[in-house]
């Protein structure tokens, strides 16, 4: 018996025609050939989030981002009100333009211009080539022909996105669509206290993303984190149901119900002593900031009490907005068909006191404990899939976003192959 009402079709999955209900293949997550197709069809065509505007606060502030799936590195730089993106490649002889000490490591900083470490060519913040070493030695060289290669770059709610296509088929806002755009107005720009985490894992990028699209695994993978331990069998038996799922184009949303975060209303013996002492826990600080009225798009299912909304941006980014007044992000950057860099960030309003800072520390520390459990489990999943002994995997209604995600990936790859054949 469902705890929450389902759409009239009887399930979230059947509410979206075309998803089907049959078991799915995970060949897309173990095939090196399929990954090669994804690189072209997805990572060189979709809008990819690469950072936030706060990372480049003034003219000349920049950061680099290496996108292994697209075999390139990018420079994002602020020039006045503009945020620009370029391929991180010197136009003289192809040297990676911006790096320090280690060519494979991303960096950030502030500069007036970019100078190549190889032969000293220089480029302005607008990408124009401003200096060629011993220019007179070249043959009919017009520096105007040798600016940095620009990349389409647009900003949504302070998140910087790039698109590596020569001509993207959609603007960023068209690509994001109304469900994601509904987040606009949330005070992301005020949440500048940031805890950032990173690890490279041995799992396909989609296998990794899958675990962050459903909470069906939570009462199993994370069972040991529930308190008190005597409640764990009940939690495990109850399983997990979300009150609201939504799809919009390639993107997905899952909302959880609230209530559990209200630890201060629970019998103290059911609350961890450290939570009582710090007035914070898994769901964040108990003393919540007043963010004013949130945009209705943050909770489009109008779930009351509301817990969190997890917005899944195709292809590799997610924002989780928590009822307690903070948010975190996940991003999954493939480095091969079975390895991925997992980036997790926790953001909140700047702490004004030590107590507030400790409350955020509890949330950030908890995020790490949970993420470790996910990451290790997903390496095990990859091993199981690569055994190749099973080719049909059943997905339930709580895994509707997983089902949609693999379908969209397949559709984008097929679509790209068709357009290449035509071309």
């Amino acid at each position: 018996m469902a705890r929450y009402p389902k759409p009239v079709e009887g399930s979230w999955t059947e509410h979206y025609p075309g998803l089907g209900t049959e078991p799915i293949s995970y060949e897309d997550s173990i095939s090196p050939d399929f990954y090669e197709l994804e690189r072209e069809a997805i990572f060189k065509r979709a809008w990819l989030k690469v950072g936030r505007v706060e990372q480049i606060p003034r003219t000349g502030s920049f950061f680099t981002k290496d996108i292994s799936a697209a075999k390139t590195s990018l420079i994002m730089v602020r020039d006045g009100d503009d945020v620009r993106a370029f391929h991180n490649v010197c136009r003289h002889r192809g040297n990676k333009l911006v790096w320090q000490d280690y060519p494979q490591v991303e960096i950030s900083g502030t500069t007036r211009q970019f100078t190549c470490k190889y032969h000293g060519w220089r480029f302005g913040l607008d990408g124009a080539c401003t200096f060629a070493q011993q220019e007179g030695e070249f043959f009919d060289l017009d520096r105007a022909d040798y600016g940095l290669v620009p990349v389409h770059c647009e900003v949504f709610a302070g998140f910087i996105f790039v698109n590596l296509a020569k001509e993207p088929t959609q603007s960023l806002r068209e690509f994001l669509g109304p469900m994601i755009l509904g987040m606009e107005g949330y005070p992301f720009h005020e949440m500048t206290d940031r805890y950032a985490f990173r690890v490279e894992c041995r799992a396909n990028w989609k296998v990794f993303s899958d675990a962050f699209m459903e909470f069906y695994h939570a009462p199993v993978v994370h069972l040991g984190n529930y308190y008190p331990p005597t409640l764990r069998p009940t939690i495990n038996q109850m399983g997990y149901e979300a009150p609201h799922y939504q799809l919009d184009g390639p993107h997905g949303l899952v909302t959880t119900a609230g209530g559990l975060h209200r630890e201060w209303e629970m019998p103290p013996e059911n609350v961890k002593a450290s939570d009582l002492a710090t007035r914070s826990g898994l769901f964040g600080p108990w003393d919540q900031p007043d963010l004013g009225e949130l945009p209705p798009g943050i909770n489009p299912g109008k779930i009351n009490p509301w817990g969190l909304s997890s917005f899944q941006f195709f292809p590799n980014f997610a924002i989780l907005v928590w009822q307690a007044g903070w948010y975190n992000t996940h991003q999954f950057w493939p480095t091969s068909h079975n390895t991925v860099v997992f980036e997790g960030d926790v953001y909140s309003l700047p702490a004004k006191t030590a107590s507030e800072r400790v409350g955020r520390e509890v949330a950030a520390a908890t995020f790490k404990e949970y993420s470790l459990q996910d990451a290790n489990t997903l390496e095990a999943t990859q091993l199981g899939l690569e055994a190749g002994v099973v080719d049909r995997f059943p997905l339930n209604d709580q895994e509707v976003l997983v089902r949609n995600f693999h379908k969209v990936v397949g559709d984008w790859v097929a679509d790209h192959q068709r357009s290449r054949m035509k071309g």
Partner: protein
Amino acid sequence: MLPTEFADLEPFAERWSLATEAERWEQRMSTPMDDMQAFYDASLPRIEEALAYCDKFPLDDLPDDAVHLLRLVYSFVLVSFPIELWRQPYPPDTKGTSFDRYVEPLP
């Protein structure tokens, strides 16, 4: 290292008053559970007073001893998970991976 009011926690300061999460995590992984339990038991009844003490100062202008105390509270948070939940330093079934914090607000 700590304010005189917290002299009872001084024996734990050298090991646990660490500036970054990376150092605190390393300490958690290499400390026997009994030692962690002793630190947890001594700290738990003092956390609220420690926070009240630190809150008397602007967060961006804490005296050194208050910074040391705040770092001790961060370590308390980090050891609370093994002590309260798992009775082991790692979350269950996570030894094969890591998740490194490389940006955090200071102090």
